[in-house]
């Protein structure tokens, strides 16, 4: 027995020992191979993996470029703001923390849960923005609970700050997060979800210049994901500052003139096309868009029948009324029809079998009287003599019915009716009688305030029309400039034929419009000491299409137009005023006068040509109203 068992043991150990020896050796070899693989062959890969676990890239957002007026006065700035993000990389049960987060950040719990649901399928490493522009208290809450709520992270950024009261809001535009739709467009190829982009106005057009390049910091994090050090950083490149052609003084005057009204004012330097002021009313507060937009505010904007978001300077398409008579005069004079035309105005006349009224009995009217009197009968007659296609040719030559090519998004082109236009759009022949209402700026004719400013400013400049723009060309590189010009095509810079004699007739007649005595269309807007000329327009809003376009309908009071220039020939400024339901062009003329006065006063101040007086004495008036204001003792 004993021997037997010993025998068996020895026998067993001999074989088993060998087997286990080989087994152990094999296991060691396998382990050795794996060790070799891990430590030697895969060293770099695993080191990178380990580093990534330890080092995290945190974006450093580049501040957008600031925006200045033409003299370097600030219009748009940035302010430091903190956004709270939720990180989901932590090994944590987030749901249990949500009530505490909701209380600390003052967000309804359901809202956080909704946000989380929206990001359900987003990659885990993508931080979820919980709340923008948090208060110091909320930031203190996050910092005081870093241990309990390591999933909360804050990010400093420079946020856009726009002027209050919607000052120049339509011109400047606003920024917002890039939308999913945008990301699919080629233009936004370089953008990532969550990036902030310009959504309208200058912010949109010049987004690539204003935006800058985001940087990043490589931070070392501990096992809780908290920053404990910094490895390296790539500095953010701030966006380029932009200087606009806007003149803050002129803009301010235009904003004040339009307060509480509906419509638009656009002021331009006709020599260069530099926009000096652009106002649209009603307005909106772009600051509301730069942080999360409240639904109540959005609703109030969307439900406003006067379209606060619409930049009426370039998007309102309305009948120009009598302001179009300047373009009619251009056509009539250049066609050598108007010079010799004499019309007897008895409060209207019969054209194509229908009576068309004039607002007064002007008696015998020629071209010199017809402009300041704004005699409809004269222009009915002229329109009948010229015919629609000649009018359309001149209208198109000064840019009516085409975009001007201003460097702002969503410009409207307006309508210059013609035989071809009617056939194309309405598939109907042109009835000759329709030309009569076009002759006084009614009918199917539709213009934007900017088109009108450019056209009349161009005629007053002897036929030289400029491409309107809001940013100086020398602010841009050549490729940027050509990119902008091809993105916003339009009528652009051009010169139309206009004889000196005709130029003189039109501009002198425009000066008569605001001259005191005699003609009464805009004499109330007369300013002593400034060679202020212009043309009124009072456009009926009965047309259903026009009604639909303004979205109004709450009023059938006519739209008041005025296009003013100073001085009368080769003007330095042209101002187009559209006061919707302003009733009478003369009302708009007074608004234009305020803008022109602000401009001229500023120019005179810069040239040192203002009297330094504590209490401004009344300027001495010269009897004939010409020759300037000669103060006593000079």
């Amino acid at each position, binding site marked *: 027995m004993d021997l037997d068992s010993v025998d068996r043991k020895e026998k067993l150990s001999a074989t088993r020992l060998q087997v286990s020896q080989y087994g152990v050796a094999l296991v060691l070899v396998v382990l050795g191979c794996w060790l070799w693989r891990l430590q030697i062959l895969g060293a770099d890969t695993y080191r990178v993996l380990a580093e990534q676990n330890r080092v995290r890239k945190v974006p450093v957002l580049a501040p957008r470029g600031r925006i*200045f007026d*033409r*003299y*370097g*006065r*600030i*219009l*748009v700035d940035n302010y430091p*703001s903190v956004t709270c993000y939720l990180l989901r990389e932590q090994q944590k*049960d987030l749901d249990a923390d949500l009530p505490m987060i909701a209380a*600390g950040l003052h967000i309804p719990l359901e809202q956080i849960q909704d946000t989380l649901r929206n990001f359900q399928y987003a990659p885990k490493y993508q931080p979820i923005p919980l709340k923008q522009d948090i208060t110091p*208290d*909320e*930031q*203190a809450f996050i*910092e*005081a*609970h870093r*241990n*309990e709520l390591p999933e909360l992270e804050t990010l400093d950024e420079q946020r856009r*700050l726009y002027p*209050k*009261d919607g*000052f120049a809001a339509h011109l400047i535009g606003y920024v917002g997060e890039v939308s999913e739709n945008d990301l699919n467009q080629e233009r936004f190829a370089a953008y990532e979800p969550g990036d902030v982009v310009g959504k309208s106005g200058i912010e949109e057009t010049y987004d690539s210049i204003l935006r800058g390049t985001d940087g990043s*910091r490589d931070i070392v994090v501990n096992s809780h994901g*908290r920053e404990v050090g910094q490895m390296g950083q790539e500095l953010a490149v701030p966006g380029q500052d932009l200087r606009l052609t806007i003149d803050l*003084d002129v803009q*301010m005057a235009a904003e004040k003139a339009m*307060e509480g009204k509906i419509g638009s004012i656009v002021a331009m330097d006709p*020599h260069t096309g530099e926009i000096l002021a652009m106002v649209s009313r009603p307005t909106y507060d772009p600051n509301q868009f730069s942080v999360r937009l409240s639904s109540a505010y959005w609703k109030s904007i969307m439900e406003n029948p006067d379209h606060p978001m619409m930049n009426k300077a370039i998007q309102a398409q309305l009948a120009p009324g009598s302001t179009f008579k300047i373009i009619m005069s251009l056509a009539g004079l250049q066609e050598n029809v108007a010079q010799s035309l004499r019309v007897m105005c008895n409060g209207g006349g019969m054209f194509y079998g229908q009576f068309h009224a004039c607002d007064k009995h002007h008696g015998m009217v020629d071209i010199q009287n017809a402009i300041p009197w704004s005699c409809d009968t004269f222009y009915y007659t002229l329109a009948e003599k010229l015919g629609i296609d000649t009018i359309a040719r001149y209208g198109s030559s000064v840019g009516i019915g085409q975009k001007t090519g201003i460097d702002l998004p969503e410009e409207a082109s307006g309508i210059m009716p013609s035989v071809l236009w009617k056939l194309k759009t309405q598939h109907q022949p042109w009835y000759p009688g329709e030309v009569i209402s076009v002759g006084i700026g009614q009918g199917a004719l539709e213009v934007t305030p900017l088109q009108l400013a450019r056209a009349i400013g161009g005629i007053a400049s*002897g*036929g030289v029309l400029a491409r309107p723009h809001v940013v100086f060309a020398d602010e841009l590189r050549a490729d940027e400039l050509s990119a902008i010009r091809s993105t916003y095509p339009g009528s652009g810079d051009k*010169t139309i034929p*206009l004889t*000196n004699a005709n130029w003189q007739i039109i501009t002198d007649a425009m000066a008569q419009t605001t001259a005191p005595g005699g003609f*009464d269309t805009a004499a*109330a807007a*007369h*300013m002593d*000491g400034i*060679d202020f000329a212009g043309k009124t327009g009072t456009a009926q809003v009965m047309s259903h299409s026009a009604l639909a376009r303004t979205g109004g309908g709450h009023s059938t009071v006519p739209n008041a137009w005025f296009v003013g220039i100073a*001085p009368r*020939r*080769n003007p*330095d400024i042209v101002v187009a005023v559209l006061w919707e339901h*302003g*009733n*009478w062009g003369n009302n708009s003329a*007074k608004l234009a*006068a305020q803008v022109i006065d602000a401009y*001229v*006063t500023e*120019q005179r101040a810069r040239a040192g*040509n*203002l*009297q330094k007086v504590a209490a*401004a004495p009344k*300027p001495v008036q010269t009897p004939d109203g010409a020759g*300037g*204001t000669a103060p006593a003792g000079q």
Partner: protein
Amino acid sequence: MDSFFTRFKNPMVLIAIVLTQVIALAIQVQRPARDAAGGAREMDATGGGPDGRKVTLLRRWTILGITPVERVVHGSSLKVRGVWDGYIDLRHTHQQNEQLKQDVARLREEQASFAEDAAQGRRLQTLLAFKQQYVTSTVAAQVIGTSGSERSHVLYLDKGSDDGLKPEQPVITPDGVVGKIRDVFPHTAQLLLINDATAGAGVILTSTRVRGILRGSATGQVQINNLTADSRIKPGEQVVTSGGDMVFPRGLPVGVIESIAPDPLHQPYTAIRIKPAANLARLEEVLVITGTSSTLPPTAAQDAADAEAAAQANQRAADLIAEKLPSLHSNASDSTAANGAEKPAEDTESQVGSVSGIPNSGLPRPKPILHPDRFSPGATPPAEDLRPGAAAEPLPAQSQKPQ
């Protein structure tokens, strides 16, 4: 089969132990802190924080095992030091004896003044208590150990959930804020100091009423680094808690501003270093605030309201910058406003022109000039003397670019 187990008893036991450990570790790693692992349930009632925070079983066992040892070590180290001082380190006893006799006399005098100080201290404390009446209850605790790591600033206290301590409770000394309770165990609690890299608090600078965020750092410094440069902030200004962080009640002293320097890594912010009021390096006794009343006494409420009003005034940097931007409703008078006066006499067409509800806008009166210029009536030459589109005279010197 029976022989198999008897023969491999030792390896089997070893494997079983190793397996158990591995499984325990796996549980610890895979289901961290959050999950209610069996024994932690009782912690729910006592130690659970407002967010239902729990401590893992393993960790709790470890702490339970180590704490008595630490207590013994802490106590015995004091005793050993006493033995050393009392019996062994007698080398300079005689000289010291003479010295000490003089000291005793001096100390007796000092004692009197200390008694006075102590009374004053009590008075101050009552004063503090009066001002902060909404701190309703505190628990005094002794520091019994440190975390033992250079980078983390965590201390162990000798009171725990059994004494009413909960996570997030603020911890103070009579000098000022020290930190807050992190994890709580039945008889022990962790104190996270305000200079830890993961600590933070909302603060107010007392004289400028500017709100800041206090943060600790890996090097153990206390800083405010969310404020932009502000010339009003000066070293020496007192810093107190703002109450906005939902941890520290309002008005507890934190420290004074030690230095202000631009922070190159966080443009445009500045780094404001704070000297903590409490001596964080030598903490022995602390007070844990275990209860605050939700309703403030009238004086405290008034103080809070004042501070709130002041904070609202400069709460957002945005408001300060907004003042520099153009605004329609600013008081700054400009030429347009000055010239915007109505001239009703000249409003010849007001009968025709005015629409009910739409006021007529005033007409500006151009300012008097020194000499006629190109805008003056009659200054424009006839068309034949002009080149179309040309500027009549050179425009005044154009703007300088913004810097």
